[in-house]
């Protein structure tokens, strides 16, 4: 950011709610079916067809709203947003306008300053005002390429039309592209965590738009706002905002003027380009949807949703640090996903050693899982078996080094810790009688060295340990060997 300038950013996120069916009809939301297969009179906008609200969409919307600190309105109203475009067969989108599903959220997120490589340096909390989250239907898809005569025609697939969306809008509370980046990641994680949305930007079930303007430091008024679209990943969004800040500041410093417009990010070219200017902007003429009654949700319903939600990521992160003594970084890693956090808590309990379980999970098992592209919920090593492995190490049955090999085999074969240790014959011998017998043999075979040792050549101790370990094929517990050997030699 150039000195003397400040950037103001507000964000809009559209997240697809994870329902089986569309928001106002029973057509499947499944992606990848043949074009227009999942359509009916309602989502095709045929005359006389009436929308009926999907209860699950309301419940997931409530989960999303609560996970972002929003207040749910007991009554909200669906409105028609009117515009004409081929992907919108009715000529309007059913959305919400002046009485949205939820409003006035205050969300605390963590944001970091970044070095030039984009690596987080220092984390600090940032309060974001979430203006609203409302429910609406998605539009269909226009296809402009890959079909005959696309220079003359566009093609429309309405399978997506009517898919439930939550639109989440913030106040212009971000002052850097990285704050916006951290916010979108926070929202993604929260929505996935509570099961409201898959929130996968690459699959298009989370889309975001950024409103960016710049002003001189100290200026109270906002500058001319530019809307950025086609931000297909969080990183694209961050880059697009950076580009846009520079473009706007340079234009203004050169004495130019900015136009209020929509610009698209072209990642290959690394720049934003005008899509349309606001002069031709639409007048949506919102009015209440006469085909749907107001949406009312009771206080009991909201409370029920709240109770059914898992402990949110931030709360869990804090608890992992306080209850299990984990570091900030370890707690962050282990609360990356809900399934991983659940996995960890079960493993910690099974291991009776929370720090040990954390080390083995994040250091070893997570690496295997990530390499295999498998989530914690599909891990071939169960939390209980990871716990059993940690216990075997803590109890001196196997060494830490052996533990790593055992874990790799557990992962590839799905066998339990005890089975692998047994099959590989790895179990350390800690039995004093067994070790004493070996020591007796070793000392008997090395009479001369024993005399030297007893005469003061204490450096020979390591030699005896080595011989005993060798005789036990490496299985003797070194700690027990040390103790017994010392006792035996000083007899």
């Amino acid at each position, binding site marked *: 950011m150039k000195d003397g300038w400040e950037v103001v950013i507000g964000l809009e996120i559209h997240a697809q709610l994870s329902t*089986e069916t569309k928001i106002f009809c029973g057509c499947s939301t499944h992606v990848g079916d043949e074009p227009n297969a999942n359509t009916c009179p309602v989502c095709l906008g045929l005359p006389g067809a009436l929308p*009926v609200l999907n209860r*699950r969409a309301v419940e997931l919307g409530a989960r999303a709203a609560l996970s972002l600190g929003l207040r749910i309105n007991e009554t909200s109203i669906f409105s028609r947003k009117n*515009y004409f475009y*081929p992907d919108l067969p009715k000529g309007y*989108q059913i959305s919400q306008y002046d009485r949205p599903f939820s409003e006035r959220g205050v969300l605390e997120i963590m944001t970091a300053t970044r070095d030039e490589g984009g690596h987080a340096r220092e984390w600090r909390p940032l309060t974001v005002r979430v203006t609203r989250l409302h429910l609406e239907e998605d539009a269909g898809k226009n296809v402009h390429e890959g079909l005959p005569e696309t220079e003359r025609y566009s093609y*429309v697939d309405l399978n997506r039309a009517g898919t439930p969306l939550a639109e989440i809008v913030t106040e212009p509370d971000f002052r850097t592209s990285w704050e916006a980046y951290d916010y979108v990641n926070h929202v993604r994680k929260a929505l996935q965590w509570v099961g409201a949305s898959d929130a996968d930007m690459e699959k298009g079930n989370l889309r975001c738009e950024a409103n960016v303007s710049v002003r001189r430091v100290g200026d109270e008024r906002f500058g001319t706002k530019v809307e950025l679209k086609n931000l297909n990943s969080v990183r694209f969004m961050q880059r697009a905002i950076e580009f846009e800040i520079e473009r706007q500041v340079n234009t203004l410093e050169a004495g130019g003027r900015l136009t209020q417009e929509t610009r698209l990010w072209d990642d290959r070219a690394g720049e934003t380009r005008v899509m*349309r200017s606001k002069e031709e902007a639409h007048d949506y003429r919102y009015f209440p949807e006469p085909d*749907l*009654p107001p949406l009312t949700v009771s206080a009991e319903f909201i409370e029920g949703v709240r109770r059914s939600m898992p402990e949110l990521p931030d709360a869990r992160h804090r608890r992992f640090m306080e209850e299990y003594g984990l570091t900030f970084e370890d707690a962050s890693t282990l609360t990356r996903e809900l399934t991983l956090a659940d996995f960890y808590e079960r493993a910690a309990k099974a291991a009776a050693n929370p720090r040990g379980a954390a080390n083995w999970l994040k250091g070893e098992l997570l690496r295997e899982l990530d390499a295999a592209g498998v989530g914690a919920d599909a891990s071939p090593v169960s939390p209980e078996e990871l716990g059993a492995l940690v216990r075997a190490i803590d109890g001196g049955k196997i060494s830490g080094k052996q533990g790593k090999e055992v874990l790799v085999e557990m992962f590839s074969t799905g066998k339990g810790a005890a089975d692998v240790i047994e099959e590989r014959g790895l179990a350390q011998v800690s039995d004093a009688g067994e070790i004493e017998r070996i020591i007796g043999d070793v000392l008997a075979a090395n009479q001369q060295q024993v005399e030297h040792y007893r005469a003061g050549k204490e450096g020979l101790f390591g030699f005896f340990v080595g011989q005993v370990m060798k005789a036990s094929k490496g299985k003797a517990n070194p700690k027990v060997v040390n103790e017994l050997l010392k006792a035996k030699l000083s007899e």
Partner: protein
Amino acid sequence: MPITESDIKKIATLAHLEITDEELRALTPQIASIVAYVEQLNELDTSRVEPATGGLTPEGERTDVSRDDMVRPSLGQSLALEQAPEPSHGHFRVPKVLTGSHESENF
């Protein structure tokens, strides 16, 4: 508020309709009279009346009209496209839409 020719022009633009000056002169008084007719409702004092947003009686509004998240049979591609003027390759085909984006223009 009286309806003027510029209102009609704007509505036509929003609806992607091209209208001639002749049509504009004919339509303006027609639409103006329709609006004036409906505006008679403004004579009523509705300050103490709750807006009937869904077009339903209070009893109707209390009726649960939501549904479970259960898939019901869709029309399928061929039936969905049967009434379309120019279906092609499983799609509705329309005159070229100019846009820089492959996503919906508005959101």
